[in-house]
């Protein structure tokens, strides 16, 4: 049953609804779908867009104009997908060559994508006051499901799965702090191009930059163009 492949393409909503009925059902449906690669990308893209909306306060704080705002959200979504592909490839390489666990790339990507399903609600991060804790909770839930999904597809016991996930996380963090730095810089530059302005990712810094452009203790934002 687990390995049976569906004949007809599966919709993303079917995967989401299967996930919410029973987590494993969502994974099974995605992995057995003939269009699983597209589904994987769709899930990650939607989660990325939702997360970008949830954290869009940065764009507002930087006074990004409405059209640029939309372009920025779409760009953030694209970067989210590319980051996903990049990091899944890194982890896949680590598993296959570092830990000698044979796993198909698309299976791994599909499993990780299913763990992103809770992040489809990341737009709730935009809610006032409760938004930030909700967003953090969603990331914790997503991480929890990542372990569950990996446990299913790696066919190792839970302790090993947790250990592999921890090792994977450490490697990803290490890479982010090394080769990820220039990539991060590149990502920032792409986001700034999309926003059409220099972005300050620290909210307070962004607000201060606009509130007090000439050091004259202004309160409301400057009417000048850009930062």
């Amino acid at each position, binding site marked *: 049953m687990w390995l049976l492949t569906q004949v007809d393409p599966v919709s993303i909503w079917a995967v989401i609804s299967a996930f919410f009925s029973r987590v494993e059902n969502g994974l099974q449906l995605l992995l057995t779908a003939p269009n699983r690669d597209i589904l994987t990308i769709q899930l990650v893209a939607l989660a990325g867009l939702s997360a970008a909306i949830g954290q869009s*306060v940065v*764009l*507002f*704080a930087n*006074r*990004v*104009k*409405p059209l640029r*705002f939309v372009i920025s959200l779409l760009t953030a979504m694209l970067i989210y997908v590319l980051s996903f592909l990049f990091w899944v490839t890194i982890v896949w390489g680590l598993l296959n060559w570092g830990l000698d666990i044979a796993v198909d790339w698309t299976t791994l990507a599909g499993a990780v994508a299913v763990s992103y399903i809770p992040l489809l609600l990341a*737009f*709730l991060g*935009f*809610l*006032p*006051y*409760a*938004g*930030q804790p909700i967003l953090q909770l969603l990331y914790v839930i997503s991480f929890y499901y990542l372990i569950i999904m990996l446990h299913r597809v790696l066919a190792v016991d839970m302790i090993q799965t947790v250990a592999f996930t921890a090792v994977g996380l450490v490697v990803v963090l290490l890479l982010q702090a090394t080769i990820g730095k220039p990539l991060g810089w590149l990502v920032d530059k792409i986001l700034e191009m999309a926003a059409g302005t220099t972005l300050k990712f620290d*909210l*307070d810094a962004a*607000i201060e930059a*606009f*509130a007090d452009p000439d050091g004259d*203790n202004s*309160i*409301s*934002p400057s*009417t000048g163009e850009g930062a």
Partner: protein
Amino acid sequence: MAILQSALQVILTILGIILFWALLMALLSPLESLGWWAGWFGDKSEDDEIKLDRLGSQTLPPGKHHFIVFLTGIGGVRQEVHIPEERRFLDRLAERMPEAVIVDDIFPYSVTNRALTGNRIFSWFWRIALRSQDERKPLGKLINIRNVFQVLVASDHRYGPMYDRGSAEIVIKGLLRHGYVIGSGVPVYVIGYSGGGQIAVGSAAYVSARIKAPVRILSLAGVFCADPGIPKIDRIYHIHGRIDAVERLGRRIFPGRWPIMRHSTWNRALADGQATIIDMGDMIHNGPGSYLDPDSMVDDTHSYLDKTVETMAIIVTGEGEELPVPKIED
């Protein structure tokens, strides 16, 4: 049984619609202040005819020594105070302190000081809600819910700095409209009633810096968080009743107000004597038995409203009669 099931289905559908609507309203609530900050709606607010930087040499209105800004509770819909209890309170306050200028034309739940019934896409809806509020119908509560979300926006550490700057600007413009002279050093008292407490506390530091004078908060059963701007406020007087459930809720939902959070800005202000809590006895938040009730009596001659007005007058003028606090017998 089938009828019961259908009824349950209808009830659940209605509840679902209400929940969806509330979620949508909450999600959209930061847009006004964030859009204002981002310049999406132009750089003008409704009272933008007063430019903060175009200040000529002025003198204070003759015979006026105190400036009091009133920020309405969450039932407000426009700049003019339209809730009868609040209007009566402000009239009594003006009567008690004729030397005070009372700025009472600010709508604190809009950073552009734009009335809900003003130039808005959904102004027609808010006019209906206002009519319902006047007739004490449930639909009128939508105004309160909408304004509660604005209080949450102001208390959010991400959105608050933008919202507070907008509020500060409308407070300053209100002061200027009423003859305040920037640089005169005259302290400003801001009464934040209920949810207006958050707007008062959040904006005070920016107002103070701009007018170059102390800003003192008179939180009348204010609901507010441990705002990062609190250390820059001259004094905070938190006036509250012992049986006020709404004010108590404010103390519960904001962790910085919990006594165990000893290093929060609010608790530090209390410890340093910068903030003072004034016990009003057994008063509730609104309606009969509330701070603004002219019919419930604290003694033979003074009402709850008198007690509230007198308490504020003592703080502002340093003179007045200490009235007893009401106690409801079991």
